[in-house]
């Protein structure tokens, strides 16, 4: 069942097909499901929908698979030295393991080759339309969807096709979030967002200020320590800097040993604090602020080198930025510093410009959808968002199970509608549910989930869906 070449044919359509929308022809794709994006989450959606017997059309604006992890893509946030921050078992798809010969924390180029092998192994490329971007997704009658696409870049005619269901997998780490600072326009130095940071050569010999203590911010600060003539690292608060290895094993695996033993959160926090005190030590001694929260309350930072370079005087920790002047930057403690280059590692925001925000329950259009399991949309049983999670593990195993659950749901809609209806009620009742302990309120943590809590919730949802009518 190869995708029909309708939306690839240039020139006018011979005659308008039966259904139309605002006078435009709509080609009916029957039971086919549309997947938006061929990054990690999109690929696993295509694979799992195919496995459950659905035809799939996947649209990808770039010319290759891998999404954010493909450094050739202009929206890719990876930089030359990007390595995984979760170890292999936390990052691989559960039914397609990464090779044993790879290191615990693979490099981003290995990850790209992993996705390419995944696409080839399961023969997914024949379902993907590369170089095609989605312009609009609109609901049609019968809970179906009209998807309008065109060639990336905007030239060429638009085409509209009608699908039985839509999976949104356009990623959430490509649209930079830039905080507003007073006086930033006057600042004469260079300013960039971490998304355009690619290579340490960009830092060489400069006085660099890195803003933000996410994993990217810490990585860039470490590279600035090695390359730049001076490095300041500005953070809003004190954080727990977890090493990548503790007790001789990848730290996340040690943590999951405790999770597997079902050790309660308080005890885990205490053990974690103890471990960090014994290994990383007291951070205030280096001039770093003491953390204002317990561990697990912010997204974990896995970086063994940051504290090391602070200890070597190569990174000067500074507090938050108050405002910019033409040559200097004023900090909240009144100090002034004079960087030549400011790198904002202040994160990303999700964007679904092809969808009416109200469809995803985002009434205020602030960019934060209201979903169940971070994937299912109340009132729209044939729409799902895959990969919109920020777990304390890799995203891909979570995306995989989200896609499996959605595929099973679509099958249940055909086989036993009453189970699908029960599921829809569950979605409406549970929208906005969280799957992590208490976290600091910040857009950084909108999609934060604890991987164990989240996977258990998904597992329960799968069981309920399967058990319904048997």
């Amino acid at each position, binding site marked *: 069942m190869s995708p029909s070449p309708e939306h690839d044919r240039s020139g006018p359509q011979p005659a308008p097909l039966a259904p139309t929308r605002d006078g435009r022809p709509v080609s009916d794709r029957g039971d086919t499901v549309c997947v938006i994006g061929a990054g990690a989450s999109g690929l696993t959606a295509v694979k799992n929908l195919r496995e459950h017997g659905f035809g799939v059309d996947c649209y990808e604006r770039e010319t290759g698979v891998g999404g954010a992890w493909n450094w050739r893509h202009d929206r890719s946030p990876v930089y030359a030295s990007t390595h995984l921050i979760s170890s292999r078992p*936390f990052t691989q798809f559960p*039914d*397609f*393991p990464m090779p044993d010969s790879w290191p615990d924390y693979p490099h981003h180029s290995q990850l790209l080759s992993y996705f390419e092998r995944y696409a080839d192994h399961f*023969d997914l490329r024949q379902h993907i339309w590369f170089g095609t971007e989605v312009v609009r997704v609109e609901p049609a009658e019968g809970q179906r969807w009209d998807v309008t696409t065109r060639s990336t870049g905007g030239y060429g005619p638009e085409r509209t096709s009608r699908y039985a269901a839509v999976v949104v997998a356009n990623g959430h780490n490509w649209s930079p979030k830039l905080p507003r600072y007073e006086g930033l326009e006057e600042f004469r130095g260079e300013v960039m967002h971490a998304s355009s940071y690619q290579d340490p050569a960009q830092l060489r010999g400069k006085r660099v200020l890195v803003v933000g203590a996410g994993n990217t911010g810490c990585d860039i600060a470490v590279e600035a320590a090695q390359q730049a003539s001076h490095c300041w690292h500005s953070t809003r608060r004190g954080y727990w800097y977890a090493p990548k290895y503790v007790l001789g094993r990848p730290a996340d*695996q040690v943590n999951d040993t405790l999770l597997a033993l079902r050790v309660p959160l308080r005890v885990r926090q205490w053990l974690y604090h103890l471990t960090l005190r014994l290994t990383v030590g007291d951070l205030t001694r280096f001039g770093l602020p003491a953390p204002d929260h317990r561990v697990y309350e912010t997204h974990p930072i896995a970086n063994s080198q940051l504290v090391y370079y602070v200890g070597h005087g190569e990174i000067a920790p500074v507090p938050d930025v108050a405002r910019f002047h033409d040559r200097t930057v004023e900090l909240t403690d009144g100090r002034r510093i004079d960087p030549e280059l400011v790198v904002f590692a202040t994160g990303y925001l999700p964007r679904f410009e092809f969808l009416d925000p109200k469809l995803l329950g985002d009434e205020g259009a602030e960019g934060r959808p209201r979903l169940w399991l971070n994937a299912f949309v109340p009132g729209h049983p044939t729409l799902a968002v895959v990969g919109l999670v920020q777990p304390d593990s890799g995203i891909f195993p979570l995306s995989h199970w989200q896609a499996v659950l959605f595929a099973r749901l679509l099958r249940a809609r055909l086989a036993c509608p009453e189970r699908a209806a029960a599921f829809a009620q569950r979605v409406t009742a549970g929208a906005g549910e969280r799957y992590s302990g208490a976290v600091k309120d910040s857009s950084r943590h909108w999609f934060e989930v604890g991987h164990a809590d989240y996977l258990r919730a998904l597992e329960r949802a799968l069981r309920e869906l399967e058990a319904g009518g048997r």
Partner: protein
Amino acid sequence: MRSWEWARPVRPARREVLAAVPELDEGRPPLLFVPGFGHGAWAFAEHWLGHTSGRGFPAYAVSLRGHGDSEPAPDATLRAYVHDVVQVAADLPRRAVLVGHGAGALVVAHALARYPARAAVLVAPVLGGWPTFGAALRRNPAGTLPAVFGGRLRLAPRQLFSRELPDADARRYAARLGGASRRAQWALLNPDEPEAAVGRPPVLVLGSPDDRVVPVSALNRAARRYESAPLLFPGLGHDMMLDARWREPVDAILDWLEKEPAAGPSRA
């Protein structure tokens, strides 16, 4: 949620993989042969690999850790064996058909829950449990009993091969047999029920009524689990791939793959 697999991933081990790939790639799915306990990839390299590739299917055989020329692993668990199979399968260019022989079929049954195979074939499957143990004990008490206490499970040549195979060959093959790890042998006694297979692969079970390791009742039980009936080859011993009439079962497997729609070359 497989917490322990995240927390304690299987330690990698060097694996022996033998391959016979047809000169012309016809887009057929690759077959991955998984030998039973004591056997290595060599058991398939003898006849089946060459024959399979001769019929246009890429053919691979893996030696589980501790077997053949793979890294020695006296403490390997069944989970480690499953890990080995899934690793090799995921490394193949296309979705593979898993073929497990003997206790290798148990490994394959577990691997099916970890890898969406295109199809699976269980050849004379030893899925473990007390009835299998009883049959083994009756036929070969001296070889079986020590295994209970952590010794090596020994199979007599006449248990494995039919009388049609010349004695010299039987002895030569038997001399190459190794042993599985203790913990994996114990797992045979009291096996965990394999999790449901992912990706709904079609499963074929075949065996022989004259098999002196796997009784017909066990074959029926195995086939029932996958909602089919076993394909029987009278006159063959347990080690079908080495026996005198090795050609019949492998041809049956490949015929089945050719006509099974879900397992065919390309579903596009």
